[in-house]
């Protein structure tokens, strides 16, 4: 594995954040399965190294835009379980007062401009955030997360062109998990994804999205360069989602095999890999990691319990926030 952050504190935080995402998702899935969560939701499990590797290279002043599969980005950018679960359950204490839900979860306080239920819908927003930084002389960088499927949205090419022309501090992070909904990427994406960015004169990298240090290392370099006005950049992160497209997508064999899923889970899991590395490098013991996992699980259980009991927004909120004052 590539070396990126140099001290064990950083490593442990990355590990912890990946575990927090996985744990969050396991709980969210349980809430769905037990019919306690309204609607559907898209699990990030399997892709943790992408969100964490990237967000750990950012400060709170840096922004991200997220996707329909957005819990991982939200956690990685610093959000709390309590407000997140409240949001998923439509409660007033949620990040968006329950009005956004899973697909629109946003966390202003940590620079998460929000999940988006329109595939590719946040590409303009991310690029615009970068334009604002340049215009107002701020040195923050914006990362735009999106899936392989979103590369089919024309908007991507429009905004990459402008980002390239104007050297905007934006990093396009394509989470290539091999599928968009029930279709393989090869069936819906011609040619090469990185070449598409390169055609606009954008430096593009393909990286193993299951290797949190490789992701973090590359991101840190690109963020530093973007801050200096050398952006934009493009990253294609090769990864995999363990669950179905959404929590209700249970029978998946018509589009992907159980063997394939098992292979990714068993042999390329980002948490297992990083854990093995941390232990073998002597940075931490198995016991310490188990304790950390247990603590995260307790946090999550507490947050879930809190959210289940929390109040719905008052009916008077229904026509509040249509317009800002």
């Amino acid at each position: 594995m590539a070396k990126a952050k140099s001290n064990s504190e950083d490593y442990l935080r990355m590990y912890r954040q990946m575990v927090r995402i996985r744990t969050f998702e396991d709980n969210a899935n349980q809430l769905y399965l037990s019919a306690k969560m309204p609607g559907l939701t898209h699990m990030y499990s399997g892709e943790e190294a992408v969100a964490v590797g990237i967000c750990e290279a950012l400060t709170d002043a840096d922004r991200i835009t997220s996707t329909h599969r957005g819990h991982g980005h939200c956690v990685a950018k610093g959000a709390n379980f309590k407000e997140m679960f409240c949001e998923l359950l439509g409660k007033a204490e949620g990040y968006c007062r329950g009005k956004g839900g899973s697909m629109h979860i946003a966390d202003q306080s940590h620079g998460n401009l929000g999940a988006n239920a329109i595939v590719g819908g946040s590409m303009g927003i991310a690029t615009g955030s970068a334009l604002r930084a340049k215009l107002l002389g701020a040195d923050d960088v914006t990362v735009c997360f999106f899936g392989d499927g979103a590369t089919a949205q024309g908007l991507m090419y429009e905004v990459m062109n402008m980002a390239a022309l104007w050297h905007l501090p934006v990093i396009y992070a394509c989470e290539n998990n091999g599928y968009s909904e029930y279709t393989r990427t090869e069936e819906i994406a011609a040619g090469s994804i990185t070449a598409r960015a390169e055609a606009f004169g954008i430096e593009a990298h393909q990286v193993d999205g299951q290797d949190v240090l490789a992701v973090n290392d590359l991101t840190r370099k690109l963020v530093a360069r973007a801050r200096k006005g050398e952006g934009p950049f493009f990253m294609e992160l090769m990864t995999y989602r363990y669950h179905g497209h959404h929590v209700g997508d249970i029978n998946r064999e018509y589009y992907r095999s159980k063997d394939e899923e098992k292979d990714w889970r068993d042999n390329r899991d980002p948490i297992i890999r990083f854990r093995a590395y941390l232990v073998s490098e002597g940075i931490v013991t198995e016991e310490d990691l188990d304790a950390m996992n247990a603590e995260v699980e307790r946090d999550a259980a507490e947050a879930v319990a809190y959210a289940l009991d929390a109040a719905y927004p008052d009916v008077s909120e229904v026509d509040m926030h249509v317009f800002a004052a």
Partner: protein
Amino acid sequence: MREITLSQAVNEAIAEEMRRDPTVFLMGEDVAEAGTPFKVLSGLVEEFGTGRVIDTPISEPGFVGLAVGAAMTGARPIVDLMFGDFIYLVMDQLCNQAAKQHYMSGGKLTVPMVLRTNMGATRRSAAQHSQSLQALVAHIPGLKVAMPSSAYEAKGLMKTAIRDNNPVVIFEDKLMYQDRAPVPEEEYLIPFGVANVKREGSDITLIGTSSMVQVAEKAAEILAAEGISAEVIDPRTIVPLDEATLLDSVKKTSRAIVIDEGHQSYGVTAEIASRLNEKAFYHLDAPVLRMGAMDVPVPFSPALEDLTVPTPEQVAANARKLCAGELIHAA
């Protein structure tokens, strides 16, 4: 008569037309093996193959554009737009291109295509997957707009749409896919621009579109129990609109409520209500009332979402007031 779901009805209509006419084909995201997320199109790729049931990339403007071009040159595409909320993405192709080709070419080019999509809130899908955007397309000359209210309409209107030589947009209510209704085994088509009087009545006319037809029918039942006789009418297509049937009813009952699940302001209810007001004015005993969805983005929280859509109880309450001659707005 056998009962089938709305989903099956749509599937049958498309299958029958694809068998009848080799120029009909289907395209959209995950329409083939997956048969769409709502499974409405299951089985079609098995019968017609991937040549005629085409999985597209997530490129709504692109594949609607392709449909326009295919339609202009001799094919009859049916485009599946997974959520009605994505119609914003295809407005240029639909409204600047498809809707205007026939007129701009002085009648020489035609665009026989169907865009099938959906509408409807209360599914906990939040602001970008719950909109009912029929008013947007109804405003654009050159587009026909169908809003089936049951499996029966879904089948008959879909078949008519496929044979129509114009771009037709069909909004299915995504909450009704599993609702069953009697649907004949024999072939039938439902002509556009012919409203359906679902229930006769004499005191008030309730005009509902799509899901709101059920709401109106339930309201009519509540009212019947109180001795108020409500007529329920489903226009079935809002472009063309069967004004005559609506006017006849309102002239008879002298009161009306128009119900639609799109946002109320600048929405479908405004058009229908103002036509009734304009053309049946001297027959009205009370103002025509409108009940659309609230003018708010659809909230995720179940505690809020259900407040945004008209309910049978609210319709009944308003009807009661109108019939009692009560003022609903300050005079």
